[in-house]
């Protein structure tokens, strides 16, 4: 592969778990009130993409879908060392479910180019469906390695290790390929000061910034608006229930060893009845 890999990483901006996001009357999350951050699961995908670039050469493009403030996470990706970024932002995308989202992303990815590798996080912390990655692979007609916690590339083949219940599974697939990265993968490395410095410079110059962060809409990527947003989403949120306040009682157990501590906890609670050993 003389020209190097064309690597895409899909990222999403989610409400910061630390801030208390409100809930709209219709049961969806009130995103305006919450602080925002890069989806923690995507941090592993981003690291995997950067690893692939570092080890096998190529170029990383970050792709996101969301309202204009989502540019913040794309700047963060640039700080970490991705080469360029694309933001699909369109009011008609509001209230998209996973089907509509995967469709819009599929069109966006096709607009951006032909990837060798597409990395996604396992899931997001706001929707927690873990469906968009696999759906996107299906739409693109690509094989996929989900729950991938390690990978290497030999020739045109990707050797991946995926977590399964009770162990792991080794799989081999040809590129192009979509990988959803498990959170047992290497955590995202610290961004460099140089990277942050470069992005600060960039962010001051709007014209220059446009060369690195491309904002696209549904018309540009050629996605039928009927198949996105609320219209394109068969999912209906029937109700959202608040299951109590976060916070509660925490007790620190101290003692000889983990075994002792576990025994203590079991003794103090009614867990014993569920124990099989």
């Amino acid at each position, binding site marked *: 592969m003389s020209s190097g890999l064309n690597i895409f990483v899909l990222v999403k901006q989610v409400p910061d778990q*630390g801030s208390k996001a409100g809930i709209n009357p219709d049961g969806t999350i009130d995103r305006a009130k919450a602080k925002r951050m890069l989806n923690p699961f995507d941090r592993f995908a981003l690291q995997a993409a950067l690893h692939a670039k570092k080890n096998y050469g190529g170029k990383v493009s970050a792709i996101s879908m969301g309202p204009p403030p989502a540019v913040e996470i794309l700047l963060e990706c640039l700080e970490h060392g991705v080469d360029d970024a694309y933001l699909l932002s369109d009011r008609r995308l509001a209230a998209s479910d996973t089907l509509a989202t995967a469709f819009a992303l599929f069109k966006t990815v096709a607009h951006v180019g032909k990837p060798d590798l597409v990395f996604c996080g396992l899931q997001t912390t706001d929707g927690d469906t873990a469906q968009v990655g696999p759906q996107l692979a299906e739409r693109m007609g690509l094989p996929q390695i989900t729950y991938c916690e390690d990978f290497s590339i030999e020739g045109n083949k990707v050797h991946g290790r995926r977590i399964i219940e009770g162990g792991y599974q080794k799989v081999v697939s040809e590129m192009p390929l979509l990988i959803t990265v498990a959170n047992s993968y290497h*955590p995202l490395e*610290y*961004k*460099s*000061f*140089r990277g*942050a*410095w470069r992005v*600060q410079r960039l962010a*001051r110059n709007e014209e220059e910034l446009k060369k690195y962060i491309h904002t696209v809409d549904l018309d540009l990527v050629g996605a039928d608006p009927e198949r996105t947003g609320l219209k394109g989403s068969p999912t209906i949120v029937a109700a959202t229930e608040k299951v109590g306040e976060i*916070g*509660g*009682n*925490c*007790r*620190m157990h*101290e*003692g*000889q*060893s983990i075994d002792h501590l576990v025994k203590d906890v079991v003794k103090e609670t009614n867990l014993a009845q569920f124990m099989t050993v």
Partner: protein
Amino acid sequence: MSDRIEYDLLLVGGSPSNLTLAYRFLQLAKDSGKDFSIAILEKGKEFGSHILSGAVSNPHVIQKIFPDYKEKGMPIEAVCNDSNMSVLGMEKKWDIPKKLYPKTFDKTGYLVLTLSHVTNWLANQVQALAKDVPNVTVDLFTGFAAHSVAFEEGKVVGVSVSEEPQSEEDYVYGKITCFGDKGFISREVIDQYKLRDCQQIWSVGVKEVWQLDEKAENVEGKVWHTLGYPLIDGTFGGGFVYGMKDKKLTIGMVISLDSADPNMNPQQKLQDYKKHPFIQKMIEGGKLLKYGAALLPEGGYYSLPKKFYVPGAILLGDALGVLNVKNLAGIDRAMECGYVGAKVAFDALIKGDTSEAALAPYQQQLEDSFVIKESYNDRYFRWAFIENPKLLGQYLPDMVKSIDKSSPWMGMLKIGFKNPLGATKDGIRSLGLIEGKLDIGPIKYKPDFTHIVPDFVKPKYDEPKYDKATIYSRADAVFFAGTKYHEGNRHIDEFNADTCVKCISKYDKLGKDTPCVSDCTAEVHRVDVIDDLKKHGMSLENCVHCRTCEIVCPEVNLRVKPTSQGSGPDFIGL
């Protein structure tokens, strides 16, 4: 790529002092016709997320820089309309008549602030002003701490932005570096140039913000500073309760770390404080919103570094130690440092001279200002209580008892009867020191941990009745500090594990916890039993960066360092 990144001004710490400096500098540079560059490093994930204060503050310095601070939307929680100084018994509270306490404790007309919000607002103001001053570039770096100071040929030239700097890539340079941190990094400068004759001494502030019940009485603008319960063991310190808008309430304590009690536990002292009926009445049915802790440099005048500047750098705010305990004030003083520092830095950069001599006016101007003048007047305030432990160890507890049983006046009489000559003599000398009228020359504090008495016996008392739902264990409280760490973080150094083993065994024999375990404000330090040996362990993911453990460690075996990538607590709202 390996070119140096150099700014004209490198500001270490997104503190009120540094942000004031940046803002003032922009004002000065606006019509100068010259180009400048400023970088601000903030270790928190956003400006304000690692800052915590009481706070009730005199807006005089804010007014100088932002005459229109109200229009500019500075976040203000309340304007103090009722300032009280009170002594707490176990059950009752005595509001001291205004004539009997120093007028510096009267905060009427001052602003009740959430310093994290104010700091964030300041950073936004700097950014907004920078847009109008195209000849100055301002880069704000959040999530980047300075990890060590870079010296070249006897001059401060910048800082490293990596825990383990490898190459030029890991440094950022400044023609003038301004240290507005809380000592995490400026201590390297102070050590390098041997600037300290007298030890800095510290206290820890623990604070909670509550959302009061809808039916609770509106106390917006009411301010209480209290002495007495629960600090009746001779430890210097006190409590504060500030009423804020939207039925929010600040409850906090400031407790000196020179306590004789090795198991002082500031977070639990704050819980004890909340058990007092005076506070119970207010928080009943309310909800805890935030918790946090931070250190305060209390040494005052004699703990100031000999020089406030070194070649290529100046020290501001808490890095300097301008907090004034008698005034219960620090924010205005820190901001004044920034205000003065901006002009000196501006003049130095215009002249192209950042030598020691060029920065010397910074110290002169601060010495001519209220900051150091008041610090000089109050130079013995803290010392008066160290010199005579009876004030807090004997007279105050007697007073506390009388407040519950008879009256404060009877208490004073009793103190007089019990110590017919002593009390009067003590009173005259201490008052002389407190008021700054008696001059006893320079003083030298001993490190805080040297005051620890390992077999200290805590005074016993019956706790007031309280609602359990309003009291939080330390482990529960940490949740409300919003700590978040990146994987692999190790920001507290333990120098020698054997030293900790010995220390643990020593306190174990006395039936006590080590000071690091008990005084930690966030359930970080713990004792692990490994192969029947009790060892020191740390749950670093809980840490709120207060640095208490480092100060109280009797073996000087711990060091708290800045963290990377915005790890740490989230104090926004405190």
